[in-house]
């Protein structure tokens, strides 16, 4: 670990020695400082839609870059000094140690500032935080990925993983729905994966356009297109809150066990460390227990979806 990330709270700390319920309270004179971020440069920006861009960022320090690891499904806190910090899920491959890709929608003050900053801008990241999709556990099974709208962003990392380890999985399908054809992201890549790696791609839009030759309707209309063997299928779902109920309910009726259905929840984290409670659902922190939950845990939580 980098030296700079350890800070001693106070050189001549008045050590307290009263009994405490916290283990090793008295011996804790230094704790890891998790407020220091890794500095990054924005190396490339791809405009996906008027509201969404794909930012490629690269950790500047080579040691930090080499040590940075994440698992598919995790998120990081993206910092623009002076503007603020936002939680962003990582959309690039976890085997890519050169740069990270973040799919960001212009929604608030931080993301607007980032959109204005352009290539070469410096940002900082903290993390990675949170739980991840159990890719090893899924190996040897069919995988069904269901994404709605920007819910594709957290699913791109597991898709990369599956594409890189394609022979470990049986049938893989991606059901992807969006408002209109221009809102479908990364279709060039998914089409390529569909052709080369046989990751079955099924897209649908709510409102078609003149050029659109595909299906129109809700994401649930795609369910008739695919055949699912519930005994050997894992499902990954991510989308707007309203989508979870319909999709997960359908998967449940189909007979996919709840502990094989994974969802990635969205909340506005402020600390990422399970302290600020902003992302809390019931008693569960989306930042440390999530954002990836199995469906049983989510069913168990009130007002999660």
């Amino acid at each position, binding site marked *: 670990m980098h030296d700079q990330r350890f*800070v001693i709270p106070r050189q001549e700390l008045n050590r307290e020695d009263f009994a405490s319920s916290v283990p090793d309270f008295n011996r804790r004179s230094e704790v890891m400082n998790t407020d220091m971020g890794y500095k990054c440069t924005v190396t490339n920006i791809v405009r996906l839609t008027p509201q969404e861009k794909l930012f490629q960022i690269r950790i500047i320090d080579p040691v930090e870059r080499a040590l940075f690891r994440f698992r598919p499904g995790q998120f990081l806190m993206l910092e623009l000094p002076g503007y603020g910090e936002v939680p962003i899920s990582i959309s690039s491959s976890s085997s890519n140690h050169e740069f990270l890709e973040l799919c960001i929608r212009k929604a*608030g003050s931080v993301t607007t500032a980032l959109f204005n900053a352009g290539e070469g801008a410096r940002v900082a990241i903290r993390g990675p935080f949170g739980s991840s999709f159990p890719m090893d556990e899924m190996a040897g099974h069919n995988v069904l990925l269901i994404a709605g709208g920007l819910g594709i962003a957290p699913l791109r990392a597991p898709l990369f993983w599956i594409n890189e380890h394609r022979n470990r999985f049986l049938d893989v399908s991606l059901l992807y729905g969006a408002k209109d054809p221009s809102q479908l992201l990364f279709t060039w890549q998914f089409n390529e994966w569909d052709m080369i790696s046989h990751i079955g791609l099924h897209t649908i839009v709510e409102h078609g356009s003149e050029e659109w030759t595909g299906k129109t309707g809700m994401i649930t209309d795609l369910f008739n297109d695919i055949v699912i063997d519930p005994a050997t299928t894992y499902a990954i779902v991510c989308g707007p809150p309203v989508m979870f109920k319909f999709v997960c309910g359908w998967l449940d009726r189909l007979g996919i066990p709840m502990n094989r259905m994974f969802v990635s929840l969205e909340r506005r984290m402020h*600390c990422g460390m399970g*302290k600020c*409670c902003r992302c809390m659902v019931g008693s569960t922190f989306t930042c440390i227990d999530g954002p990836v939950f199995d469906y049983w845990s989510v069913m168990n939580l009130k007002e999660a979806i």
Partner: protein
Amino acid sequence: MIYKIISKAEFQRFVDALVRSNSSFGPRLVDIDSRGEPVYQFQPVSSIDEIAFDYTRTASSAKHFFLPFREKLSQFQFHDGDWDQSVSYEANPVVVIGLRACDISALNILDDVLLNGHFPSPYYLAKRKNTFVIGMDHLPLPDCFCKSMNHHTVPTGVNLFCSDIGDEYYLAINSSKAFNFLREFETRDPQYDENCRLAERRKLISSSFRTEIDVTGLPAILDIEFDSPVWKKWGDKCLSCGTCAMVCPTCYCYSVEESFEPDLQSSFRRKRLYSCNLVDFAAVAGGHNFRPKNGDRLKYRFYHQHRGFAENANQQICVGCNRCGKACLAGINPKDVINDLRLEKDTCTTSVSSSPARS
């Protein structure tokens, strides 16, 4: 733990010496409220005469010595399109006098929350370690319900705890620092008589509670009553002002915000204590709010206090001081809300049979 007896006069000399030579805080009378009741707060004190040892309850809790309303987390200094980030969490030694058992329990709960897990908070730790806490017992106020929450006594988390046994204090010395300070003053070992008086004092405190909340099985009841109309009823009263969380000794939720300094050469990241009753607490990018109604947020606060934490750390986060009930402008207090939830169950007509009928 070492137990000693000190006379009240000698104790006053001890506290006076401590207060005069250290940055100290104690309960002080600051105002009289509209109901004619005194308002106390923990404020800086420089001599023993300023400390109101017989205070009832401070309006704000002692958590603000450890979790200030606003706290700078880091500073960014800009230069040539780059920046230097600096983090500092220095804390000066502070003495806090007169905390009640519930206040100290609250600190222990905060220790559990903020110092356990993968990411212990260095900001909190520095302050907690540099604070010398003197606790004092008291007879419960009419609306105290800490006994129901099992926080009317506290075994840990305090340097020195004083129990009033007539003309003397029965001291529970819980740290070497307190023991060393007390060496300079006249104390003696407790005898049979004093032990009896301590037991009597404890019994008196324990039997003086007039407010009780039945919290047995509450986590499950809260789960079952998730859609209860009780939440709408109380939510309609709630003004969503967040006062309850500000005065609560254990509410620690916060928001993180960043600002530029006026010269635009630097900026800082700051945390600000927040309340789950504020309307944007669970709002996300794009405008969706996971808890849009007053009742949802009020319910969430009770869930966090009485259920969520019970599941994670096997204890409820409420210590029973009723500061929130006292401060609430809409007259909402935990006793009424929880009793209302239970009452709703008690009035179910379908569950009146004493046991399932035998066939």
